[in-house]
């Protein structure tokens, strides 16, 4: 099989490439250049730095596979960064890594497979994609602690049939020991946890530099309507936030709601964070047919799934949930199996 491997320069995608090569496939490695600073400089943190590309290049050389760096900075800026800014500006809580998977990595690479003379796209995600009874089933990765199926929950049959996730069958420890046995330079490389274009700093600092216009002052109010103070922009707040609110109230207060229309940030007690149900859009189903009924729902990348019931585009939690905000992705599971996903468009208390 001719396989295009998206190599980030990390250990997982290095081993994904190595496993495909060992299995006798015709492997081509690419790294996507997604972001550069205002003067074209490469980021120093996150998943797309010059040294990451260098690691990927060296691993590809060691595996003796052709390797290229593809420039998707325009697509990334328009599809991911602008959306990130817009989402925060409208009081939502975006997940840029999911948006990047959706609009850049999978979209561009899968649509480009034929151009790259490849049949399948291989990534280093920790999730399992298995062909069972004529359809592709997406499951949580073998290593539950490293599972990344949440960020893949938007994939459908058309995509899954052309995606292979070899390291999803392994624990992270096994991945690292394979890399070490093969002498890959990425064997002990730490995982990147930062948003690549934000880097080590706070995302608010990024927004302040990149989009000062989205900072519009507004009132901080209590849930009963009492005015508590003011803030310099709703983009500085996320639902569930407790620190850095700019007011001292004697007892713990949380951001419980953000009203982008009036630039109002509403503070309340912890119990006011509870969300009973959410409305969803951009619903997708891994195996095609829409699903209704009991699911396990996960609404954060590293969150635990909670029982819930799906009715069309409404998800009703069995127990009210804290810190659920518009813009977040929800993935639906049946056990380890990913049923689908959607974006939270509104919340109901």
């Amino acid at each position: 099989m001719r396989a295009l491997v998206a190599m980030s320069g990390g250990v997982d995608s290095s081993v994904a490439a190595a496993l495909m090569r060992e299995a006798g496939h015709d492997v081509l490695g690419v790294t996507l250049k997604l972001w550069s600073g205002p003067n074209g400089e490469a980021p120093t943190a996150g998943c797309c730095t010059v040294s990451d590309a260098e690691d990927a290049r060296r691993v590809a050389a060691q595996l003796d596979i052709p390797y290229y760096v593809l420039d998707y900075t325009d697509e990334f800026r328009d599809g991911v960064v602008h959306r990130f800014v817009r989402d925060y500006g409208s009081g939502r809580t975006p997940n840029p890594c999911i948006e990047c998977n959706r609009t850049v990595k999978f979209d561009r690479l899968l649509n480009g497979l034929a151009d790259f003379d490849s049949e399948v796209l291989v990534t280093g995600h920790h999730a399992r994609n298995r062909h069972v009874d004529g359809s592709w089933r997406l499951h949580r990765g073998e290593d539950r602690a490293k599972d990344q199926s949440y960020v893949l929950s938007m994939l459908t049959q058309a995509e899954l049939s052309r995606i292979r996730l070899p390291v999803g069958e392994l624990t992270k420890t096994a991945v690292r020991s394979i890399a070490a046995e093969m002498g890959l330079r990425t064997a002990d490389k730490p995982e990147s946890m930062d948003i690549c274009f934000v880097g080590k700093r706070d995302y608010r600092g990024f927004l302040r530099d990149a989009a000062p216009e989205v900072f519009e002052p507004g009132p901080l109010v209590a849930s009963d309507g009492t005015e508590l103070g003011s803030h310099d922009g709703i983009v500085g707040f996320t639902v569930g936030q407790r620190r850095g609110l700019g007011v001292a109230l004697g007892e713990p207060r949380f951001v419980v709601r953000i009203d982008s229309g009036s630039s109002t940030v509403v503070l309340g007690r912890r119990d006011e964070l509870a969300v009973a149900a959410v409305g969803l859009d951009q619903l997708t189903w891994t195996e095609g047919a829409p699903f209704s009924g009991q699911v396990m729902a996960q609404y954060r990348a590293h969150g635990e799934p909670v029982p819930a019931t799906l009715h069309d585009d409404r998800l009703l939690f069995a127990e009210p949930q804290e810190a659920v905000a518009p813009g977040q992705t929800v993935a639906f599971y049946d056990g380890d199996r990913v049923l689908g996903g959607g974006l939270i468009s509104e919340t109901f208390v």
Partner: protein
Amino acid sequence: MIYLDHAATTPMRPGVWEAMRPYADDVFGNSSGVHEVSRRAKNALEEARERIAMAIGAGPREIVFTSGGTESDNLAIKGASLSSIPRRGVVTVATEHEAVLETTDFLRRLGVPTSVVGVDREGQVDLPSLVDTVDANTAVVSVMYLNNETGVIQDIAGIASAIEEHEPDVLIHSDAVQAFSSAEIEVDDLGVDLLTITAHKFGGPKGAGLLYVREGTPLEPVLHGGGQELGRRSGTHDVASAVGLATAMEAALADRSRFRSQVAQIRDDFEKRVLTAVPDAVVNTPETPRSSHHLNVRFPGVRNETLLMRLDRAGVAASAGSACQSGASEVSHVLEAMGLSPGEARESVRFSFGWNSTADEAMDAATIVIDLIEELR
């Protein structure tokens, strides 16, 4: 592999490596030393300098050895702007190499008055506006002889004399890095005060270049130190490289008229074959004087990045624009300056031919290009 990226670098010509080798080996002396092994190195260095001077119609004292094109461009522009002459300004052109543009921008950040003049759709600098931009504050005007991405040839002699007439004290620099294989380079005919040449573009080693500095030209060094090269460029001489530069230069000079006709024929046949099979392909410089070995062509609807990758896998080496540090190709500033949109620039590919290109391989490459364009559409 069919190598069609000779504008990036070209293989060493026969005999060059052999000529260099003794100076990386037995004759290892520091050319500034007093003992025999150093004297032998010094003799080889000065003999190389004379051979090089002869090849461009210059005097030996007018040759400053450098590490290559980038250093020579830096020395020419910084050296002229920062010299003892009170004039500081720099005027250059939007399609120059980054070595010129970034050096100019560096000086701008230091407070030096700088101007970057545009070009027309064909990549030709607008001479009246170039001349108008030059004033009593201008120290140096830098215009590339033969563009690295498009092969567009600027009329350096015409530009030099127009500026001379307007502001006689302005220094004229030309980056002639791409030119030596095919174009006439006699410094007096060109009318330049400073000229950049680098060996690896015409069959010499990498890391070996020179700046021609007309006798009497005021120049502040960029590398200060032991005072080599009459104080214009300090640092222990790389004698092997200097010998390689001289040897390659003589070989390229002897081969120039063949290169100009034969390589041009190979390039033209390739171009004709590709354009016939891909009728909507667009040569980005159709009308203007162009080198014998460059072809910059746009294939509408095909992203150059993808085409270059597929060409590489099919055994054809070509390029587009310049590569950033990560290895991704960036939108060509040269094509953008010529009025192409970023999208059009991303559909443009450079094929460049060289001293060892053959008609057969060029025809094979054309077939591969044509098949790939059809497949990628």
